[in-house]
């Protein structure tokens, strides 16, 4: 198994950041006017107690003797970026081979990369580091914490490319038929305990990259045939395919709709959400910038997706797709203490990130940064 081997370097790196194993963070309580839980609900005037890097309690009074931080604004779970390559550069792509399903992106994590601070400043506390888009089976994504410089979960989900981006003219596969032939063989030949075998058993989620609806339909078929769970990533429009996607049980992860995105794309998120399909957004901060995630969410909100649904897509929905909803994505007892304090509603672009907590620690304070983006 890959897991223990890969965890080690990550821990060493994390150690390098913070010196010897840090003492458990202090217990503290946040009292916020609005607590956006992440699952679509909002609690008013609620106390959240953080203890030992976890959320100990939500609601009730602050325990005595504990520092209470009054939050004059909104509290949300830390945002989750489902596809990102910050700091990984060419490590994301084994350019001579299209199928490298056992590569773990945890190895490509560089906790010292300066760009991570940008993501944290935008409220992103959890990132799924994934292989580049042009592969067929580029490897397994790793869940990392940019604020703590730690690998949270290596080998977290299988990344497959089933869009035209994974087709070439001079290298196999050159057609969708060829692509699925390769993919089918890789799945059938997968050794026990390997990522593809675990994906087939339903114990490891997949993210299948598709752009067009026709590609989505092929991917849905393939997922059904191999019993895959997880999500389609990068779909541009879902109109006409909503029922089939909903029936497949797969989620849909949208790429950040940049400025000038088409209306059909923007409307698709709402259609899928209304049909009960879990939705999320990729971050792609390495190419689109750290603010792209929230920019995308705001664009979808303006196109009619509800504010809480958009926040859910960046928190609980993303955690579900990444298979970490047990520990991440909502403000609930037992979850990791990853929280963001906003000056206004989290999905409103005019809101500013005031504080970020990760691992129960106060890792970003806008005031200490002079309210500016300088670093």
């Amino acid at each position, binding site marked *: 198994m890959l897991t223990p081997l890969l965890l080690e370097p990550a821990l060493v790196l994390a150690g390098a950041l913070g010196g010897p194993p840090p003492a458990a963070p202090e217990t503290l309580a946040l009292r916020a006017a609005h607590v956006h839980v992440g699952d679509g609900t909002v609690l008013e005037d609620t106390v959240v107690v953080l203890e030992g890097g976890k959320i100990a309690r939500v609601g009730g009074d602050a325990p005595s003797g504990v520092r209470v931080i009054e939050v004059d604004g909104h509290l949300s779970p830390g945002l989750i970026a489902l596809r990102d390559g910050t700091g990984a*550069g*060419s490590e*994301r*792509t084994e*350019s001579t081979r299209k199928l490298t399903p056992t590569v773990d992106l945890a190895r490509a994590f560089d906790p010292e990369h*300066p760009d991570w601070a*940008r993501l944290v400043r935008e409220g992103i506390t959890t990132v799924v580091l994934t292989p*580049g*888009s*042009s592969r067929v089976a580029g490897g397994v994504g790793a869940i990392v914490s940019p604020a703590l410089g730690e690998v949270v979960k290596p080998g977290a989900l299988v990344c497959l490319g089933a869009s035209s*981006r994974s087709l*070439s003219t001079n290298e196999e596969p050159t057609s969708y038929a060829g692509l699925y032939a390769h993919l089918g063989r890789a799945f059938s030949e997968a050794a026990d305990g390997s990522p593809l075998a675990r994906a087939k058993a339903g114990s490891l989620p997949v993210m299948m990259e598709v752009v067009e609806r026709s590609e989505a339909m092929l991917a849905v078929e393939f997922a059904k045939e191999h019993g895959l769970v997880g999500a389609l990533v990068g779909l541009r429009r879902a109109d006409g395919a909503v029922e089939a996607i909903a029936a497949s049980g797969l989620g849909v992860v949208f790429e*950040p709709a*940049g*400025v*000038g*995105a*088409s*209306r059909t794309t923007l409307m698709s998120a709402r259609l899928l959400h209304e049909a009960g399909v879990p939705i999320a957004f990729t971050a792609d901060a390495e*190419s*689109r*910038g*750290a*603010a*792209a995630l*929230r*920019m995308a*969410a*705001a*664009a979808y*909100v*303006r196109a009619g997706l509800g*504010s809480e649904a958009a926040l859910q897509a960046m928190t609980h929905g993303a955690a579900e797709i990444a298979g970490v909803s047990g520990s991440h994505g909502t403000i609930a007892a037992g979850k990791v203490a990853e929280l963001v304090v906003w000056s*206004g*509603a989290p*999905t*409103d*672009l*005019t*809101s*500013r990130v005031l504080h970020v907590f990760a691992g129960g620690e106060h890792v970003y304070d806008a005031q200490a940064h002079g*309210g*500016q*983006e*300088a*670093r």
Partner: protein
Amino acid sequence: MRSKTLGPRRHTARRTPLLHAQAPLTRAAGLALLAAGVLGQTAWAQDSEAPGSEAPAAASAAEEPQALAIRAARVVLRPGQVLENATVVVEGRRITAIGADVEVPEGARVLEGDVVCAGFIDPWSVAGLDANSARATSSEAFARAADAVDPYSQEHVLDELVRAGVLATRSIVGARAPFGGLSVFLRTADAQPLLDESALHTAVGVGGGFSQQRSFDGSLTFGFSEVDPLQRLAQIDKIADQLRAGAKYGADRVEYELELAEWQKEIADKEEELQDDFKKAKKDRDKKVKKAEDDGKEFKEKKYKEARRPREPRFDPEKAVFARVVNGELPLVVRADRALEIRDILKQTAEFDRLRLVVAGGRSALACARDLVARDVPVIVTPSASAKSTGDSLNRGLGLAGDLHAAGIEVLIGSGGSSALASRDLPLLAALAVGHGLDADAALHAITRGPAQVFDLGADVGTLRRGRAAELIVLSGNPLSSSTRVLFAVSNGEVVHSDAD
């Protein structure tokens, strides 16, 4: 519900002949025009309209739309100036009253919302234009974006802009050309120009060829290759040279007008003199004719020698445009990002004291803040999620708009013309700037009043005031909040979008 008038465009709006901008010379210009009637030939025939053609293009529609009474909890007259629980009355395509106790005209349609404010204006857009013209990599300074307006193929795009509350754009052709030409100020709801020629758009650092590059993951990316530094400096020199040439051209033109007027006056004086002394002159002539007959000689008519007509300078459309720019009649927009280049542009253009310079882009403009403030140069910023504040302290990333505003620079926010649909996301871009440090009122100013003022439509749009054109939006919440919906859009006095439809 959208009514659309797709008739032939009116090219009238406000094309003021060069001379009108020069106050001391208007009399000479008047004389010249007067003389033109006499001589059947005019210097400015290609450019002049009847001086009274200042009526807004809006007046073209035949019948008046239904009067509107718009009630809202907050009426934003202009950013920072808000009336609570007020009504805006629109009659005959104009705002006729605003206040808490205004009389609602009989038969008026009543609209209700949380906030009413001026429609958003994108000062840097390619909306409403033929896509190829907008993307052109080469263009001329005298190319008119008004000639590239394409209401048919762009209808769906313009429709999305209206739904987003973006009711006007300053649209440019040749977004990738060093000299983009004359931008058009477009009303998005009906693709009619509010102002045919609103500014000369130029750019430093663009115009390189089309290139394809292989990125690290093996995929091909296509884009415009960068222009090298020397070429960029040459582009700045070219702008400065053209301004100088334009100044000379304008001066020559003015001199010609004066000489022509003088010449015409001389002729007129002579005519008058002859008229006055007609009887005496006839008598004298008769006498002379008789004398000649008596002497048996041939009568020689005394010839009147006319002074030579001054020579008209050769018409040059490019220089004519730069002459208007030098005069301050048209603002000059220069797209530039690097601090060195912005500083160079400021230096090279310092001699033209009537020039109205606007910087577009301005990624490192903060480094030139003092000069920009001293010269009163506004900056059009395009907030972008991918804008990184690099280790380079000159580049402020997303904090740029807030930093420039704090430094005292007038900040406008534009979509940057990356695509026509980008203008739809103008309120998102403004919100992004607010989320990264820009004051909320300044952000609203940057997409309403600011663009209107900088590009000469401040007396008509961009603010809500009695007498202004009815270009406004009714919203469900704060203008820049992401969750706010545009309930109604009113353009040219008509409801052009209703959220309920």
